[in-house]
């Protein structure tokens, strides 16, 4: 393989593929990036077996077609150190040479044919969802996804496609976030996408994409890239059971005012007690080390009796960070019972703190 490519183009491709690399065991081929030059295309691939990204560019001069691999991190470091100009990539005797003017680097390669194969789109169904909206909605529930839960299915977000609507669901067992979307799809099914894949998808979606899926894999494709992730095989908890059916009180609250007060108290403690009184809302820290924080805002709640909520402030802050509008709703039944934060189609059900 021998190609010439502009530094800025190559660097951009390399930066986008870094998070897919194996970083601990450098003897693995997945610590390397795969590249190939054929039919006027220069392709870069990275994969950790669980998910992968393929980047394609036409802006390349191909002298010889062929394949190569190189340690992804080192490759990027080398390219960063070069000037904005054409860079020559050439394979000679199982080594990748990187050249620019009088500078020359030599990196060892693995056998490129051993690089993990990417899944193909053949026979996979197309996901008929507005992808931009899907990705935006996934972002709202992303911080509610659990990490390292021995129940694997909780380490991902559920896309539950039902007859009338689509629910995107995530839970870390203390709270449950749902975004409801309208359904444009006919068949009903559900898939669980790993958290890491959701974080990576957020970085990629800047142009129109198509999505394909089967039982095991989800593929997202655009003009320049193909992204794939393996899906989590498991049974997501029956989340609809958790959504309270009846609500006793609903309070329409100001996002900014709540946010400011919560942040103040959270400096001292994440565990917070909020008392909704008739004319004001009082925020207090709940901790045992003799420090205290207290603030209040004036707010006509219209309540006859006080409502007291003990909760983890982070859960409301996470919710509010995904609310763009001025107001949101807090729906409440009784202390000790789960309460709901609502903003249009986005809701989070939170388990209060037990004292």
């Amino acid at each position: 393989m021998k190609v010439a490519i502009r530094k800025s183009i190559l660097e951009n491709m390399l930066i986008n593929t870094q998070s897919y690399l194996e970083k601990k065991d450098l003897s693995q081929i997945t610590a390397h990036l795969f590249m190939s030059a054929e039919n006027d295309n220069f392709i870069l691939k990275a994969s950790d077996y669980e998910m992968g990204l393929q980047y394609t560019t036409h802006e390349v001069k191909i002298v010889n077609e062929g394949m190569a691999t190189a340690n992804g991190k080192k490759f990027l470091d080398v390219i960063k150190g070069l000037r904005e100009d054409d860079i020559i990539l050439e394979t000679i005797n199982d080594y990748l040479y990187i050249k620019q003017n009088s500078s020359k680097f030599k990196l060892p390669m693995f056998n490129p044919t051993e690089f993990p194969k990417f899944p193909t789109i053949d026979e996979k169904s197309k996901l008929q969802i507005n992808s931009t909206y899907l990705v935006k909605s996934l972002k709202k529930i992303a911080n509610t996804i659990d990490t390292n839960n021995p129940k694997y299915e909780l380490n991902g977000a559920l896309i539950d496609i039902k007859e009338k609507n689509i629910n995107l669901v995530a839970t870390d067992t203390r709270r449950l976030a749902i975004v409801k979307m309208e359904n444009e799809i006919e068949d009903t099914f559900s898939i669980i996408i790993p958290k890491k894949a959701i974080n990576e998808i957020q970085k990629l979606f800047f142009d129109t994409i198509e999505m394909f899926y089967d039982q095991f894999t989800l593929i997202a494709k655009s003009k320049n890239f193909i992204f794939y992730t393996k899906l989590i095989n498991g049974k997501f908890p029956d989340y609809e059971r958790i959504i309270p059916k009846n609500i006793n009180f609903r309070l329409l609250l100001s996002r900014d005012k709540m946010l400011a007060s919560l942040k103040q108290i959270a400096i001292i403690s994440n565990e917070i007690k909020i008392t909704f009184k008739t004319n004001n809302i009082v925020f207090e820290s709940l901790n045992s080390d003799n420090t205290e924080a207290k603030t209040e805002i004036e707010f006509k709640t219209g309540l006859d009796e006080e409502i007291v909520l003990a909760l983890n402030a982070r859960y409301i802050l996470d919710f509010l960070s995904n609310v763009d509008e001025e107001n949101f709703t807090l729906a409440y039944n009784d202390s000790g019972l789960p309460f709901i934060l609502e903003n249009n189609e986005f809701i989070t059900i939170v388990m209060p703190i037990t004292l």
Partner: protein
Amino acid sequence: MKLHMDLDCYFVSAERTRYPFLKNHPVVVVKGSDKHIFAHTKKEGVILGDSGAFNSVLEFRNHYDTGDILNEWKKEFIDADGSIHGIVIAKSYEAKRFKIKTGTPLKEALYMCPHLIVLPSDHLFYQTLSYKLKLFLESKIPLLEQYSIDEFFGDIKGWISKEDTLEFIVHLQNEILEKFDLPISIAACKSKWVAKLATDTIKPYGCKVIEDTQIQAFTNPIKIEDFPGIGRAIERRLKSYGIETLEDAKRVPAIFASYGKTGRELYARIQGEDCELVLPSRVRKGIGISRNFAALQERGEIQRRVLILARYLSFTIARLDLKPTTFYMKIRYQYGVKSAKSITIDRLFNESFFTKLTQELLRELDIHRGYKIHFIALSATNCVDRYNPKSLSILDFTKDAKNAKLMQGLTKIRNKYGVDMITYGKEMAGIL
């Protein structure tokens, strides 16, 4: 001044209160396996008030023949083949002279002292007596903390002046002997832990006041391993630096500081500067239940026993209104092999959840299927409360809340009619 009150050879003294003829004889109290808890016959579990952090809430009524108490132990500890089992858990000072210690197997103890008097333990009696003593002490001391079944801390600051302390404790000691027939040793000092150290040096039946100026001189010669709070790990580390006594230890605050907050607190205790308070009602950190029994191969029976222990523990937890989230289980096999695991699950505690969890843990822990099991322990800690707030699992909340309500109902019935009023069908296994 703070007091430490430590009953002298408590279990033996307790037995002597009802069998005075045991006085001045070498006596040991021996613990055998619990014959009641796993029996298929009707049990008489007795629920005790929550009288202190170390006292279990549930004990079983024994039916020893009080007229022939000296021979009762033979039924308990001599097997059909004539072999003797059981472990000494308390000894009188007369028995101590024969080098019998707590933990000595009964068989050895009988070799050491052939005319030894042996009694089977009766924890229900000891608990009840200890509770009566506690009530009495509460009427005499403004702040009282029960530290274990036979130890109490008291704070008499503002009640008795420093000068009158010795007179007060001597009087108290006499009163306890007169009223309860129980010998007790009492030490007073400004530090709880130094007072506790002091009672060990004055036993049996001693009284001592350590003035502030005497603290250093008193603690200096004490061996580090005798200090409460210095465990084996710290002891080994200190000894590797050639530190043998508290005097040596006082010179090396840096070693203690390396253990963080616990280490610094321990160092303050050694200096007698801990200022730790007497805590009349300490927050219960956790609760457990464990039983030894003749080694068993049959796994179905082991499952049944785990279920029974889980039911008892769960009842106790419900009664104390605790919400534990960390659970521990340990099984011991023959040949000294053991297997244990601790797991934290943030769910609302209920009996249904707990009995299932313990069965799962048993399956996981039982790694030597060919070995016999002779010991099971369960404990529950990390309780959710004001000082340990937690959000519990939302996924199981509906189910758990329902089961917790059911457990409250069960507890009501068991409180009224006895803990064994409602049992599991599976507990009948083996008799049908």
